[in-house]
């Protein structure tokens, strides 16, 4: 793999950038792999990367029906934090956070992970109780976090209306300084490039149309472009499309795919340095390094694979943003879009064996899986390599929905990201 650096840029500029290597190959798939990863989003690519790099499994294909990183990875509001409530979730997301902290260097790809801090606002007494509860749990789990009062919040975000005369005044917030945002596309591309360099075949524009199941075990996939491709193990990492793949395996998942929308303003001069999230008034916002305000909207109640949702959801979100930041009233919204999020009843992911042998699922990240990308990929790779779930993944078996051992993160995750 060609090493990237500032020096390289200077060198390449002398040859008019004609000699850059491809970031990844465009291979024709082999007949058989050790592991097939279905889905080339951030999680699938990270899985492949760690399989090859950390666990020595290099005979791997990632099969992506569209373009790499074009699913929810392409359309999320890029918030990264690990301040989850329950131990199981907190450990998983913190595992990811630790990987984020050296990711650009590990990948030799600047994913622009920017630890500008995340505020989760509280507007009611119950919000504040929940915030206390979560921050205390974080602290005892070794995750950074503080409870701030309205005055401290105001100092961090001078342009937000923290006064008492709003409909739902800001009473305080939880604050995770290590949290922040990252450049979503770069995450996918960095993992793709790294995986490719370790020999992984990235097969784009190729959809898995069925699973090959023999004697109750998954032995490969059928594709629309290359027919059958065999593998010893298959990992499905297709987010919103997970139920579709599960149906190919003859089972259902405790999942529903909903539209989740986001929007950006036109780029404006930097005015907001941290990430502000409010579950109560239902909006969250950060400002990208290009200057656009990146704003997350709510989830629509109906199932939808259309990558678009309903207009009132966007209206509602902007009402919340203007309520928090009345000065943004004259800023303009540039573009809105949607993704298909795979929501689980307990707002936690599924990292799991399935009723079909050698078929594994990584899904259910719903509205908030971008932040977990490195951790999810790492833990899932370990599981695929061994054929047995990694300890951090164990609590997230799909079978928890049989025995009732849910990890209910609604309070901490909810619609927020």
């Amino acid at each position, binding site marked *: 793999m060609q090493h990237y650096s500032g020096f390289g840029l200077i060198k390449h500029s002398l040859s008019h950038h004609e000699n850059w290597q491809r970031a990844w190959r465009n291979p024709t798939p082999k007949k058989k792999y050790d592991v097939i990863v279905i889905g080339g989003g951030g999680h699938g690519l990270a899985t492949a990367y760690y399989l090859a790099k950390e666990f020595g499994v290099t005979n791997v294909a990632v099969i992506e029906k569209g373009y790499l990183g074009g699913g929810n990875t392409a359309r999320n509001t890029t918030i990264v934090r690990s301040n989850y409530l329950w131990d199981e979730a907190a450990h998983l997301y913190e595992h990811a956070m630790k990987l984020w902290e050296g990711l650009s260097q590990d990948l030799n790809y600047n994913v622009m992970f920017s630890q500008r801090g995340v505020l989760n606002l509280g507007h009611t007494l119950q919000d504040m109780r929940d915030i206390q509860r979560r921050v205390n749990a974080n602290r005892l789990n070794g995750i950074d976090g503080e409870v701030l009062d309205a005055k401290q919040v105001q100092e961090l975000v001078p342009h937000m209306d923290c006064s008492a005369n709003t409909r739902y005044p800001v009473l305080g917030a939880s604050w995770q300084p290590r949290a922040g945002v990252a450049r979503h596309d770069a995450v996918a591309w960095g993992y793709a490039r790294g995986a490719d360099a370790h020999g992984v075949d990235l097969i784009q524009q190729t959809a898995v149309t069925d699973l090959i199941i023999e004697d109750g075990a998954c032995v490969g996939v059928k594709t629309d472009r290359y027919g059958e491709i065999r593998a010893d193990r298959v990992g499905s990492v297709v987010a919103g499309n997970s*139920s579709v793949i599960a*149906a190919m395996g003859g089972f259902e998942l405790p999942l529903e795919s909903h539209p989740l929308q986001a929007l950006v303003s036109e780029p404006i001069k930097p005015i907001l340095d941290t990430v502000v999230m409010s579950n109560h008034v239902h909006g969250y916002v950060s400002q990208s390094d290009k200057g656009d305000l990146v704003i997350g909207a709510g989830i629509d109640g*109906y199932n939808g694979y*259309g990558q678009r949702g309903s207009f009132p959801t966007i209206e509602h979100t902007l009402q919340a943003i203007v309520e928090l930041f009345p000065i943004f009233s004259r800023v303009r919204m540039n573009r809105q879009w949607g993704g298909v999020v795979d929501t689980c009843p307990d707002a936690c992911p599924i990292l799991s064996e399935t009723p079909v042998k050698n078929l594994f699922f990584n899904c259910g990240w719903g509205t908030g899986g971008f932040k977990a990308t490195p951790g999810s990929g790492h833990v899932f790779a370990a599981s695929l390599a061994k054929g047995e779930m990694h300890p951090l993944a164990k609590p997230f078996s799909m079978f928890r929905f049989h025995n009732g051992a849910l990890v209910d993160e609604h309070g901490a995750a909810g619609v927020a990201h």
Partner: protein
Amino acid sequence: MLHIYCPHCCEYREEEEFHVKGQAHLARPLDPEACSDKEWGEYLYFRKNPRGLHHELWVHAAGCRKFFNVTRDTVSYEIKEVYLIGEKPSVVAASVSAK
């Protein structure tokens, strides 16, 4: 934004008046105690979540407060049919995956 025909009010209304309640025709097991944990879990949480035709339950929350079923394409969002509780859909997926 969806435009939904309420079969009780007998006219189209805006999505804002409705709440969606998920997959339709999920009958509560008649004898819950006879269900295994697995069966109960499946009733509670496991869903078809199809890409394509979907039968779902809606309620005209801000209107007549009646529940009814909708058959909708989850990709195009086209509503193919609206029918009453207790009725069966007439528009169904042409072929359900063999397995």
